[in-house]
């Protein structure tokens, strides 16, 4: 067969495909319900370039030194100690690459009515540095974008380097997913785990789930011994070092007990725990490598969370709610949450939601509903500032091309309005990562910064955006201190 015939054959294939492309409309041909046949749009071939966004991910990575693990990052930081604030300007903040770093400072937005919203929190931070304040806390709530300590880990590590503190902060007794680098967890007995977010178990009649929106249920006391929770800590990590353990629990009877076994030695037995909600506070002054907490609670007792923290300094808690949209807080038991919040005493709350409602919800409904949740936080944590972090960019695939969900910007706007109208702050993650059509550049980056679901960041990608948030927060801290000096 001569090459010319091969040429004719391939030309004929291309010609036929061209005719098919002309015949099939750009939006495709519906066959049944979900099934739709589509083909190359001839005009689309010439439009393709306009859909490809600038490669934002590469620019952002070039300005950053983050790695997969915040504790392994080279030290570059926007933080400026207060004593030097006489010379402080934005451009004086300076690690290695000052010019490009400015690119990554995407600033927090404040309500006009409350531009110094974070003042109370920054004063606590100053107090921590100067030894005038013993401890403070940030509660970082979010959806699956932050699970496994993602996003929080970098913010925690950087802040604790400057303001002190160590430990994981609040963690669930029975984790939803493993992989926390600070510890390995195991348990004895058939523990239950119940969440208020996602699929709710209809056998749970109450709505006391604690501030984490989830609790672990203590199993039946076996003849052989009490059920226990076991933790083995990675004491080389900052998050694996702590000297205070707080257990937030609910018992149905008085006379409940807990036994603490540290590094194979029983160190304390707490008896006569009160009926209802209580916080068990245990201190251990040498390094804890292994911990067993034996639960002398009757079946059905609830563990709302355990906090491994340092005696002083800043704690940053990662509270991830897979599939959540941030609309559950006001629906859970107010009194119980309030008690737990009082025990935690946060200096700042961060709410990072929006991604899960992007495909489905009416933005105006979401704005109103989210505002109600913010009002709820105002009531149970009066005076505590809240930063709302919006959704990241997310892509859908249309005719093989990845595009930003049409609903992202309206949802972002809804969260932004809800936050600012409530007098709180907003950080626009979507714009910070490059805005419209930035997600494909995160997925296609080498190494990848986001997963091929075009929704979730990889550990490297999440640390990149976490650093951007940290930079935004610390820039406000630097500027606030500077403005505040004469007051």
């Amino acid at each position, binding site marked *: 067969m001569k*090459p010319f015939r091969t040429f004719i054959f391939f030309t004929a294939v291309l010609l036929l495909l061209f005719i*098919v492309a002309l015949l099939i409309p750009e939006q495709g041909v519906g066959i049944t319900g979900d099934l739709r046949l589509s083909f*190359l749009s001839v005009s689309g071939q010439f439009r393709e370039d306009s859909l490809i966004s600038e490669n934002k991910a590469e620019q952002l990575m070039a300005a950053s030194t983050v790695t997969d693990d915040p504790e392994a990052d080279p030290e570059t930081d926007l933080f400026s100690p207060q004593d030097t604030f006489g010379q402080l300007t934005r451009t004086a903040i300076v690690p290695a690459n000052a010019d490009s770093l400015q690119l990554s400072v995407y600033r927090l937005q404040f309500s006009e009515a409350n531009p110094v919203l974070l003042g109370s929190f920054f004063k606590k931070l100053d107090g921590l540095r100067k030894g005038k304040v013993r401890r403070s806390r940030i509660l970082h709530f979010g959806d699956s974008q932050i699970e496994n300590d993602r996003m929080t880990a970098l913010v925690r590590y950087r802040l604790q380097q400057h303001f002190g503190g160590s430990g994981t902060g609040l963690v669930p007794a029975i984790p939803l997913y493993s992989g926390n680098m600070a510890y390995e967890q195991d348990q004895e007995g058939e523990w239950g785990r119940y969440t208020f977010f996602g699929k709710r178990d209809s056998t749970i009649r109450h709505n006391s789930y604690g501030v984490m929106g989830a609790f672990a249920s203590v199993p039946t006391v076996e003849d052989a011994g009490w059920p226990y929770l076991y933790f083995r800590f990675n004491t080389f990590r900052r998050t694996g070092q702590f000297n205070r353990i707080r257990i937030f629990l609910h018992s149905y009877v008085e006379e409940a007990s807990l036994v603490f076994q540290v590094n194979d030695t029983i160190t304390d037995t707490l008896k006569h725990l009160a009926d209802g909600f209580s916080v068990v506070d245990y201190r251990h002054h040498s390094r804890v490598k292994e911990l067993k907490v034996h639960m002398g609670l009757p079946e059905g007792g609830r563990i709302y969370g355990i906090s491994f923290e340092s005696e002083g300094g800043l704690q940053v808690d990662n509270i991830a709610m897979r599939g959540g949209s941030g609309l559950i807080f006001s629906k859970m038991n107010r009194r119980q949450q309030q008690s737990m919040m009082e025990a935690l005493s946060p200096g700042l709350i961060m709410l990072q939601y929006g991604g899960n409602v992007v495909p489905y919800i009416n933005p105006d409904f979401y704005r109103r509903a989210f505002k109600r949740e913010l009002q709820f936080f105002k009531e149970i944590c009066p005076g505590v500032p809240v930063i709302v972090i919006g959704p990241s960019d997310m892509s859908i695939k249309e005719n093989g091309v990845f595009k930003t969900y049409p609903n992202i910007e309206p949802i972002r706007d809804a969260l932004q309005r809800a936050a600012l109208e409530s007098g709180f702050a907003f950080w626009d993650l979507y714009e910070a990562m490059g805005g419209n059509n930035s997600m494909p550049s995160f997925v296609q980056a080498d190494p990848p910064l986001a997963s091929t679901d075009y929704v979730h960041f990889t550990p490297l990608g999440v640390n990149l955006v976490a650093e951007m948030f940290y930079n935004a927060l610390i820039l406000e801290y630097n500027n606030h201190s500077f403005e505040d000096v004469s007051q």
Partner: protein
Amino acid sequence: MIRIVLDIFLFDPEKPLIFTRLFFWLFYVVVLLVYSIIYKERAVRNIFLFAVSLFFYWKTSGLFFLILVFSTVSDFYLGNLIHYSRRKRWKKFGVIMSIFINLFMLSYFKYTYLFVDTVNALFNLDIGVVNHLALWSNRLTGTRFDVSMILLPVGISFYTFQTISYTVDVYRGKVDPVKHILDFGFYVSFFPQLVAGPIVRASEFIPQLYKRYSLSYQEFGFALFLILKGLFKKMVIGDYLALNFIDRVFANPTGFSGFENLMALFGYSLQVYVDFSGYTDIAIGVALLLGFRLPRNFNSPYKATSVGNFWKRWHISLSSWLRDYLYIPLGGNRRGRIMTDVNLMITMLLGGLWHGASWQFLVWGGLNGVGLIVYKLWKRISPYEKSKHWAVRFWKILNTFLFITFTRIWFRSESMEKANQFIRQVTREFNASIIPQVLWSYRLVFLIMALGYFTHWVPEGWKQALLNWFIRIPIWAKLLITVLVIFTIYQSWSADLQPFIYFQF
């Protein structure tokens, strides 16, 4: 208009010239048109295909094509030196220089980061990588290459091995040197196999340079079948599974249950096969339509009955290269049992490193080496080794497949930490209760995975019957089937993303 012309001729790293892009097939049609005019003039044909191949590499790798040219020039003249020198010393010098230059280039571009990271980790240093080649070019010619990073030129692992095989074969007297440098350039850079193989031996390919073009109607049908099969395997099975399931799990193993991790591993075992074999199917088909025969590179590898048998079916051109240019020169099986095992292990470890510059690939290669050695011992004592019973064969195939799939944990994981996370999830967080939910929610993914494995494991006779049927049908039917297959591939390529699903609460 100017933009379109620039798009065609300028290098754009975002738009490489690869088989799965429309632009490649437009390029191929233009090549066929010119080829149909000049194919009878052997010298002109070879020069044309060399020029076209360089253009292909330029569009794929930009200025790295200069490295390809350097490799071509140096190995051509070293080949001549080896052949025409009368003194053995010069012949030896020529072959050593060729091996050194090729391996140095490969090491510089591929292994610098692994080397520097290892030194840093061992001695607690913080040495950075400097691209001295870029630095030298910047100083000498005023270019502005980034000196802080070393990028890997596409296909360098393939063409360096190809040129080493040439000079070694000339040294061993197996082939005569190529007479004209343009012919040699054509052999090194022939575009269908340039970036992902098969690795073509000089002795197989060079004689074809001097033959007239020939292509029977049957061969045309065979080539077209390979191209369509390759595109289908790569785009409908491989790309769909990777995008909608596998990549997500391996990017974040701890976010998924052990069952999902395990399914992703089985999916990956299929994906890596359909991707790679699909690409070489297309390469073989594209080359054949131009009248050049490339060697078979895969032979249903998951039908292998042992690890040794697997390596005779998987990436055949690489495993035979490693056998002929590494294992046998090391001594092969000629120096006793222990040295045979040592040689096998060295070959597999280096073969692992060839696939990628990281410790995971070394582990992967090492595990394959262990598999080969253990099987050698086992077959001496196994009472079933010579049995032809179907159950024995099934058991052997199953074990080999599971072992090879197990080794893929390290082949696919981006780091040792991710590999450990994967193992931890499978062993400690299996979460069997969500299996029905996972299977149902990802039903299309699992259906495609099942289709992929089914088509792999069906008897060879069925596949041959389909191929024969395709070869026999008239050309208009081939035309319609080609259009239909491409239309189907497009449906898969443009399908909606499988949404992220939460199974664990």
